[in-house]
């Protein structure tokens, strides 16, 4: 297993895209914290500002770091097929399970380290501007930060699974952008039309929407005009996202074992 980890670690570190994806992800999320600081430096800080600053705007639907890290997840297997390196890879490491486990460990560990680093950088910005971060270790802010880390990890897992499932990069990128940004938003929007109210029970099972709920500060309030979506709790919704990630990954893994390289 150590050999496979060494291989995968070298693979990740010798790709230029690894550096610019992480760099851009950190730059954008830090930019969000800096922007908040510039705009609100004269206002008193509260938990909501700390929340947006620390998750780099992921809390209101722009999960920058998750998206950039998910692309690294897609590249982990997608690049192997796109550039034909799966052949030398499998003649170097023919045990397919071992290879996938190594890829998962390296990509998820990198994601965890980068996400924690991003939160630390943004916390630094908050302290530089306001000198405090109220409610950081208290509920619900502390819990939502744990939810943010889990959300990024699961998002990357979905990207990894899609790259392996489609054995390429473009299809996986289309799905990972199209599904949360267009398909889920469209289903949510259509469900508010009375003629399409049969979509209402579907909304609480939308995986990316559920995943994002792990990092919410308060349960969403859509107002009296909106249907009752009977949404899951924070962690139950996270469970739906995790189940979706597991489903994609399992299908991809089974097919990887079964298909010709």
């Amino acid at each position, binding site marked *: 297993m150590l050999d496979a980890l060494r291989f995968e670690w070298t693979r990740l570190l*010798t790709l230029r895209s690894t550096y610019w994806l992480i760099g851009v992800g950190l730059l954008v999320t830090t930019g969000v914290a800096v922007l908040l600081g510039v705009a609100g430096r004269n206002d008193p800080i509260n938990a909501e500002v700390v929340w947006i600053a620390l998750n780099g705007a992921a809390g209101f639907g722009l999960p920058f770091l998750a998206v950039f890290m998910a692309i690294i997840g897609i590249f982990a297997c997608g690049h192997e097929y796109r550039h034909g390196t799966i052949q030398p890879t499998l003649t170097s490491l023919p045990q397919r399970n071992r290879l996938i486990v190594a890829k998962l460990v390296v990509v998820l560990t990198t994601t965890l380290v980068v996400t924690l680093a991003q939160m630390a950088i943004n916390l630094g910005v908050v302290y530089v501007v306001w000198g405090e971060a109220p409610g950081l270790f208290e509920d619900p802010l502390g819990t939502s930060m744990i939810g943010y880390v889990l959300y990024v990890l699961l998002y990357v897992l979905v990207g990894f699974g899609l790259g392996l499932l489609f054995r390429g990069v473009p299809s996986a990128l289309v799905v990972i952008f199209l599904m949360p940004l267009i398909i889920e938003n469209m289903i949510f929007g259509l469900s508010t039309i009375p003629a399409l109210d049969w979509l209402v029970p579907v909304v609480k099972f939308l995986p990316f929407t559920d995943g994002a709920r792990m990092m919410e500060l308060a349960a969403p309030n859509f107002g009296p005009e909106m249907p009752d979506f009977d949404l899951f709790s924070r962690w139950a919704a996270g469970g739906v996202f995790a189940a979706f990630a597991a489903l994609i990954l399992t299908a991809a893994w089974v097919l990887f074992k079964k298909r*010709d390289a």
Partner: protein
Amino acid sequence: MITAKGLYKRYRNTVAVDHLSFDVRPGVVTGFLGPNGSGKSTTMRLMLGLDHGEGETLFDGQRFGTIRRPMNEVGALLEAKPFHPTRSARNHLRMLAAGNRIADKRVDEVMEFVGLGDVKRKKPKGYSLGMAQRLGLAQALLGDPRTLLLDEPTNGLDPHGIHWMRDVLKTLAAEGRTIFVSSHLLSEMQLMADELVVIGRGTMIFNGDVDTFVREFTQSQVVVRGPEAAGLAETLKSEGAEVVAEGDALVVSGLEIGKVGHLAFTAGVELHELSTRRASLEEAFMSATGASGQFVAKEPVRAAAPAAPEGEAL
């Protein structure tokens, strides 16, 4: 030593490899021949577990998938450019070496050996096909393996490169390694290979040494030259031989050289040359695989056939 037993691969309605069994001995270069689409690459992929099918291949008694650090036992080159375009050639090899506990020093050694030492930090997207083949060979040699499987390694190489590749493979074989190499360059294979595995439409056509293959799949010819050689033609034909005139010589098929000499002596015909013409590997290959090509192009049509003074059947 490679032992392949009952290799079989089917794609929907097409059988690509049909129960192939053969051995590849150490110490010699074994050529792997077959027309386009005959299943050579699929066979090699089956041997390495890249494709799923039936049968088993053992490398010195071990299945490829069970070897802990396979690059130290079996080196493979299957595709011309299996490299990430922006990862340097050296880093590509470092990555593979990392998975097999091979030191970076060895990476530099093989890059120098294949002649890419000066461009090892460059990205392979700028490499020519010949340079990519050299990098592929460096990859195969990385773990200093006892067995090499190379699919068309001379593709894209210039004549110097082909000569170099031939010398490398023959030297490695002389060191007692097992070399299994496919190629479309039959003239090159004739110079390089000691033994052959020849397949057509996924089935075995021949497995043995090159001389036997040529003998088995071609008719040897006897060249007769002399001032009165043409007068011997009828005598030879009456003995069942096929006789073709080539200038002042006769090319005789279907009779042994001794018999031709005896007939000339009996007929009192003066001869200046009596020799056996050995067929080439290409001729043997065409004869052996003529009916098994999957993709057969049409013969070129000439506007007007010129008169042929030579080669006219008598």
